């Protein structure tokens, strides 16, 4: 057990956790930030995606000890009022079915669009390929990413 100072959504949180606790469970169990979802625990599904220094990262594979001094953004901190262009696009397209994977999808999409604001169809598919949507809402996820990129530009 050690104390870690983690900068999440612009605020520093002091967390006591076992050394090997993944960021996912620090967020969910220690900090009550449950928007980041557990899906597989092995970095295969993308439900737990957060931004670390602006890059989409699987929080189930990161340990608290690796994260001091890094800027972490979760779905709760993506925008102040839920109006990030990607969140707006998600609402406009009515993407979710069960909704469970969508926080991870949105975090992947928003980090991707920061780096590639005007992607083509194939680039969107490649960027989103690592996030599983078990309900199969891929048509709408693709459309929402494309709309968000238009909102950006």
């Amino acid at each position: 057990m050690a104390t870690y100072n983690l900068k999440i959504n612009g605020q520093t949180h002091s967390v006591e956790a076992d050394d090997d606790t993944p960021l996912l469970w620090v967020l969910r169990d220690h900090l009550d930030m449950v928007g980041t979802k557990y899906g597989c625990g092995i970095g295969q599904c993308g439900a737990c995606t957060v931004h670390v220094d602006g890059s989409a990262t699987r929080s189930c594979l990161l340990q608290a000890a690796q994260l001091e001094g890094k800027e972490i953004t979760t779905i709760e901190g993506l925008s102040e009022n839920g109006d990030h262009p990607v969140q707006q696009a998600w609402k406009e397209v009515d993407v979710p079915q069960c909704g469970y994977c969508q926080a991870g999808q949105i975090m992947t999409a928003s980090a991707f669009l920061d780096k590639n604001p005007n992607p083509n169809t194939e680039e969107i598919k490649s960027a989103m390929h690592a996030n599983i949507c078990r309900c199969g809402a891929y048509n709408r996820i693709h459309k929402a990413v494309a709309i968000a990129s238009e909102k950006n530009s």
Partner: protein
Amino acid sequence: MSTLIPSKFSRRGFLRTSTLASGGMLIGFNLFNACKPKAEMPVDISKLNYSDFNAFIKISDEGMVTIFSPNPEIGQGVKTSMPMLIAEELDVPWEHVNVVQGELDTENYTRQLAGGSQSIRLGWEPLRQTGATARQMLVNAAAARWGVDASECTASKGVITNAKGETLGYGDVVKEAAMLEIPENVGLKDPKDFTVIGQDATNVDIDKIVTGKPLFGLDYKAEGMVYASVLRPPAFGQVLESYDDTAARAVPGVIDVIKIGAKLNAIAEKNWTIQMGSSEKVVVIAKTTWQAIKGKKALQATWTDDSTLESTEYQDKKLFEILNGDEFTTKREDGDVKKAFAEADEVIERTYESPFLPHNCMEPMNFYANVTAEKVHLVGPIQTPEPTAEMVAMMLGRDLKEVKLEMTRMGGGFGRRLYSDFVMEAAEIADAIRKPVKMVSTREDDMTTGVYRPSIKYRIKAGIKNGEITSYHLKEAAINVNMYGLIPHFFPAGCIPNYKVDVGNYKSNITTGAWRAPYTNFLSFAEQSFFDEIAEITEKDPVQLRLDLLQKVKGTTDEKIQYSAERMEDVINLVVEKSGLKTPKEGVYQGFCAYYCHNTHVAQVADVVLENNQPVVKKVHVAVDCGIVVNPTGALNQIEGGIVDGVGHGMYGDFKFKEGMPESNNYNSYRLIRMKEAPEVETHFVENTLAPTGLGEPTLPPAMAAISIAITKATGGRMYKQPFIKNMPKKQVIG
């Protein structure tokens, strides 16, 4: 003014009202039964009791409407579409409607179950009737205040208007309305006057979903809650012999290690919703989820073989023994197939095979339970709250009235959350430790100790005489349970004079159950690719072959045949027109199929192209007749999702066992469809004003058939076994 049409749904006393102490009107109603004579309406909104009502509508003094939605949400959109039915007839703007998931604490919650794509179909009349009756009461209240006849007043968008043009908002008259006698036989709107039904209503939880607010079972927390991780037998057929928890107890944060199973095993046979092995299990209780998972990994357990440890090869052998044997139960028989085969010019027989499939809900199984001397409090994602609450009460020897079950949004269902094993475990754990506890399955637990779609094999035999199909014999070999309900009477029943459906199964210790579109999810592929092959062999157009067969069922008086030849023709003609099936494009190989299940008629055409000599599914055109489309955006989402799900599991879904142990345990060894593999879906609705039918399942089964037929066109080879990716014919490259 709207045209009101008489409702077929007329019944006394299904609705009660009260005035809320905090202001506003409360309407309680029972969807499928009359209210009990003594049923009392609460006057405090925090004390909604579901013992006498299965749902409530609150209309506030401001005219805002809160609907306490009666059905669990698993991603199929009923939390949005069912309240739309009430809002339509109540005649309030959808923006003024707020939807809250109802909770369950009694035996009287009728059909509070999400499964079988039935929610909209069964709720269609009663939900609209409830809205219409409430609207009439508000109109009557306004008319009384004005001293005019109610027939001179109209209501629209939450405002009542009289002949002089004076207006009152719903909120203005709720207090009087709540006191009025409840009118009977209120008419319903003509579909042409609908203003809510048929308009896009975004998922009611969307703001919470896109901002990461707590919504799902896994997100639920309570004061003092601890976490539990359950060690179940590694192989089906094994039971716990002994365990050593020394190392587990040394893991930081671990509070306790207990054994469960005895209480559940005592009642496990009592209800179909409990599907699980009979072994006892070891549970690690810890302060956090991670510590509980680590504690479980540190357990040392010894398991004993209790029954056959099945491998996939064993299952295949057993299923082929059934198909090759003669011990079947006949589910439908017309004419004499044996005689017809003997007289046929040609007999075609094919065998189709499918693997087991796990559900893989993205939110792993989990449940919160808190058992005290006073009550049993359960919170989480379950599709069958009613029998689950009953089983928990029975297991713990408690009065059902002490059990309070609250449903959360569910991170996927697909049939898995019909089964309550994980709720029973949570309740047994909470009963033992007497602390609020959340049982959390890991992905590995979820995939390896689940309830599965069982492996099934079909053998279909058809006799051709003078170019016509004169006989059809379908044999099903399944595990544990066979096809149910009206499936034996689906197409082509009634189209072929000599027709027989035979089923057989063997009992396995592997837990099996419903998986999105049970049986039809594989039967559709077998049957529809069989017809495509018959068309090829008999040199007929595959579309015309279906249309010719459908002619023969027209005018049937067989009540078991519920698919409609006319509606099937409509979807076939629509998909043929929209997909360009008659005007083929160079390099695009199209596969056609038509299918009816879960009361909805669907036809699909899949477009496959060859990329590097490999077939790739690019697009699926779909025509759907689901009657009136209640919520187009939600309907499209279900249709697209069903097709992508069907394509994914047809192409990749594979789940094998070795000596009772699943060979896949996470997404690195079990392949789910991803973005690049998902085809574009183009949907076309048959427009009519028939009562709506469900969409959670019906587009999935034909997708597997359509892509397999298209792949055949592209490669020249047929597939008889799923997953297609492992049984793909090689393209014959000439030259």
